[in-house]
């Protein structure tokens, strides 16, 4: 069973994504901020990371930077953010994000992109 980590500070959206992906048969780990995300990833290996950009403690850009920079992680990262400003999108991709979705997002589209990223990783 594929494991997905969701880093999202909005409890309701976190729960929505969790419920939607759980129904697809994924094993989901939920965290509330960037720092917690990195701590969990130290001890657990996941198949995909879905992260928001603006979170408390460490933001999405810092998380991506640390994962791809220091830890040299190859886990695919999907960024899910309300900020669709070009600058933020480009920065996320430059740091190593594999995909970017702007809020408001469709759950169906999210499922499709998750499936694709997991297939690419496999």
């Amino acid at each position, binding site marked *: 069973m594929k494991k997905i980590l969701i880093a999202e500070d909005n409890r309701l*959206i976190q729960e929505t994504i969790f419920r*939607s992906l759980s129904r697809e048969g994924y094993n989901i780990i939920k965290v509330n901020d960037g720092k917690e995300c990195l701590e969990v990833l130290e001890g657990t290996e996941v198949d995909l990371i879905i992260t928001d950009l603006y979170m408390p403690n460490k933001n999405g850009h810092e998380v991506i930077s640390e994962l791809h920079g220091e830890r040299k992680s190859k886990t695919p990262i999907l960024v899910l953010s309300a900020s669709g400003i070009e600058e933020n999108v480009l920065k996320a991709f430059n740091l190593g994000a594999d995909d970017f979705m702007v809020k408001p997002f*469709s759950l169906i589209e999210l499922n499709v992109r998750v499936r694709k990223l997991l297939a690419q990783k496999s």
Partner: protein
Amino acid sequence: MKYARAFCFKLCLNIFSLLCLICVQFTPVEAETSKYAVQIAASKDSDSLSDFQDYYQITDSITLFLSQNWYLYVVGRFKDFKSASEYAKVIIETSNLEQAFPVELEKIPGWSLVKSKQSPNPQTNPADSVSIYQNELPAEVDKTVCDTNVVANEKITEIAPGTPRRNFWLFELLGKKYFVKLEKQLIYFGNNYVPGFLQKRFIRIIELSFIYPIIFFLLILVIFFLLNIIVVLLILYITSTRKNYRERYIEVFSKLYEEALLSYFLGESSWEKTRIKLKKHNKSINRKIIISILITFQENLKGAMENGIPEIYAKLGYHRESIKLVKSSNNYKRIRGIKELTELYPEKSPEIIPDYLNDTNDAVRSQAQISYILLHRDNPFEFFRTLTKPFTRWTQLIAFYLQQINKLQVANFADYLDSENPNVRNYCLRMINHFQQFENATEIFNLLESDMEITRFLAIRAINNLRLYEGKELIKSRYATESAKNQIEIIKALKNIGQESDFDFLASVIETGSVSAKSEACRSLYFMSDVGKECILRLNLEKNMEIDPYISHITDERN
């Protein structure tokens, strides 16, 4: 009821018996057979007995004796010591006296003289309750010889000489009787309830406060402040408790509603079941919770859920409440109503929102304008045509931000440059600048004639940024009459749209202008072209303009 009546009857009977007993036991006997009396006070000076009686609330007749330079105040006549002792207790309770004790009459000098005279009966003639020795003493009394037999070694109640009277204006106004009683009660409280180590001080303070008004008022002030603090702490406690309860309530219902609505949106639950789970949804606070959840969904999710959210909103009847809110006299409620309608009722809200675009309240108007932009994505700024009230800087910033985030249709801002609203004109100039809309240069040039300095400034800037060369002569011709800020902007524009023909103009500014103007003119000339650079260096050498510092400044990379 039966038992209550019986109890009341018994109580009345007991009280009557007691009164009879008191009357029988404590009715002073006739003077001739008396052996004992009750001493109630002693004084070095003989005060007016009527004042004494008033002050201590004594209705008995008082006999005044002199013993060893002390005036002894004595009441009653008793056959035995026991009766006198019991009466002493009674008189303490029924008056303001602190102490009273039995004395043997035979031992009091002057008693024999009193005994030989007929004493007035205090019960029959209260007016004669004052002793015959009030103001004069019989000559036979030897003032130096006396041995008052104080039974039971009780202390003599002393009225110190020169004690000021407790008669300041407040006492007179509210009644001495009340304050005398109050003092007695406070002293009683001090004697019985205050801890031993504080007792003396407490009683002393009480006594002083009833003598000196300022102490009395200070004590009142202290009590008032303490009460104030207690009330404040109580209010804080109640407020805190209520706040905690409210937060807990919101947390519980938020989880409940989130679960219910999420199940519905994910197709796990039908509407009927969801409706049942949305308990108390008509309550005001619960309504706020549900609306908050729906707005969160609306802002973050789209697709199949996008239509479902307004549907739930309408099914719950919340749109009626939102429309009511919009019509409220409370500005905060109106803003809330406008926001709710914008987010959750997009079908009908375009008909309602325009009424508030020119609202007198800044916040309501701002929200209405932002809502309009969100609801009219194809033509978000059409409301500029009818806008008569200000379009504030803050709203302008939000509008710009929304445009970027939502990728709204970019309006042709030149269409609104002829607006009479200066905020609209200025915002449009900024947007023309940002979106590089140079198609309608004529409208921009017209604004150079505006009365407002900021509008002219933005027009000059637009000419500069959009490289509208045809506007160069216009702005140069306006240089002399413009403000300092706009002059700088004109000089800056020449850096981008200037030519060799403008060198003389810039040279004259370098010669005669202010420091800022000189600096900008040097910059414009230096960076206009290579020819301009040569020109300024030549000017420096030939005309000795002393512009080396300016050239160093403009060529410094940090600038």
